[in-house]
């Protein structure tokens, strides 16, 4: 019964991917998230340095809401490891801390359908199957116009030692756009640390500059937020924010 559901999800995902590919064509669709007013200077190639120039602003015509940094994240609520049933994901908490400190825009990777269970054990099984199948679950909505950003923070929980497969969908579908940018990974985990997120991101998006990642214990993100915020701020400072 579970397999039927997974097959249907996979078929639906395939249809969505094909539809997205058909609609998006070769370029990017313009984002509905955080439209910025001035995009002129973003047409030039980014410097390739890890973040130190990103927010110092070569931009004289910026609107107050302008941000050259984006935080992309994938996060689950429901029953999770050691934190019980949560209504805000561990990764989401960290993502918001980063956005708050850097003034970055936020974009959440959401699965196109509801196929991730809300109980830990069942979710673990689904994640395992996706990984074994090297699946590319589809995400919903359109990615913000990546040409507006120099730096993209990308975060997710560690699932079976790797990025959740839906992130690989994101990396692959946006590979060209992400290629010239500075990408900075962050993970939430319960022991695995960064689990090679940086290397795997670098392999998935050749040409990108991968910055030094941050690993946060999920339980800390949920229950020791002041301490985590401090760690995040120190990390961001080291990166030049």
């Amino acid at each position, binding site marked *: 019964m*579970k*397999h039927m559901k997974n097959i249907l999800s996979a078929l639906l995902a395939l249809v969505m991917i094909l539809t997205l590919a058909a609609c998006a064509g070769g370029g990017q669709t313009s984002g509905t998230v955080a439209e910025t007013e001035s995009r002129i200077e973003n047409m030039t190639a980014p410097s390739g340095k890890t973040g130190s120039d990103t927010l110092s602003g070569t931009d004289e015509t910026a609107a107050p809401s302008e941000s050259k940094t984006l935080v992309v994240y994938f996060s689950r609520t429901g029953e999770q*490891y050691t934190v019980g049933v949560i209504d805000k994901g561990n990764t989401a908490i960290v993502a918001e801390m980063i956005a708050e400190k850097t003034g970055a825009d936020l974009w959440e990777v959401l699965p196109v359908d509801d196929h991730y269970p809300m109980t*830990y*054990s*069942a979710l*673990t*099984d689904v994640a*395992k*199957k996706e*990984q*074994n199948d090297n699946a590319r679950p589809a995400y919903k909505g359109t990615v913000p116009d990546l040409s507006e950003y120099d730096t993209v923070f990308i975060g997710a929980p*560690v699932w*079976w*030692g790797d990025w959740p497969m839906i992130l690989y969908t994101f990396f692959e579908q946006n590979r060209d756009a992400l290629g010239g940018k500075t990408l900075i990974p962050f993970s939430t*985990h*319960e*022991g*695995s*640390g*960064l*689990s*090679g997120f*940086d*290397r795997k991101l670098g392999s998935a998006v050749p040409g990108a500059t991968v910055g030094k990642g941050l690993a946060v214990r999920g339980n800390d993100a949920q229950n020791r937020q002041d301490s985590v915020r401090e760690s995040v701020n120190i990390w961001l400072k080291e990166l030049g924010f």
Partner: protein
Amino acid sequence: MKSRLRIFLDIAMTVLMPLLMAYSLVGETAHEIIGSVIFILFIVHHILNRKWYGAVCKGRYTPRRIFQTVLNTALFVFMILQPVSGILLSKHLYTFIPILPVTAALRSVHMIVPYWGYVLLSVHAGTHLLPLMSKMKKAPLPQVLFCADILISGYGVYAFIKRGFPGYMSGSTMFAFFNAGEPLVPFFLDYIAVMVLFASLGTLTAYLLHKFTKTR
């Protein structure tokens, strides 16, 4: 005196075990291959030592024998649980096996058992090295070997803590930490030191139990 084949197999398993513990550092596929090989060697090891099973119900149970029997039984259970859970979680070699709806539980098994197994296998090896140790008394510089053993074992205590064994063995850390891109040599040196530490403790235990048995 063990046959050459049995010695070769035992050494092979001893060498492969730290490689296995390195998991993603050697690569997930390599891990699954090495795990499969060790499982096969383990089975052959038991076939070659089948007389032990026949003798289990016979004879007197001295403290030394109780210790060995309990240890071996635990190891037998671990060395079934570990490969089986690994096979059921396989990502590269055994993907034809359908995923059972117990991956979280299998993962927990595959997470705790190896660290206990590694420690107890080292003890197991150590208990069987007692005759070898006795022979070494006649070696040119037994004190050097003894000192080296103490020093390496001492470092082994540090490595045991540094590599997170207490957390893994107690279940307080349920997800293995690997520093991707970490050079392999320091990792292996740490794990070999841990092996030497517990093998030495195993030899010591065997020695003390032997003495205790004799004085009864």
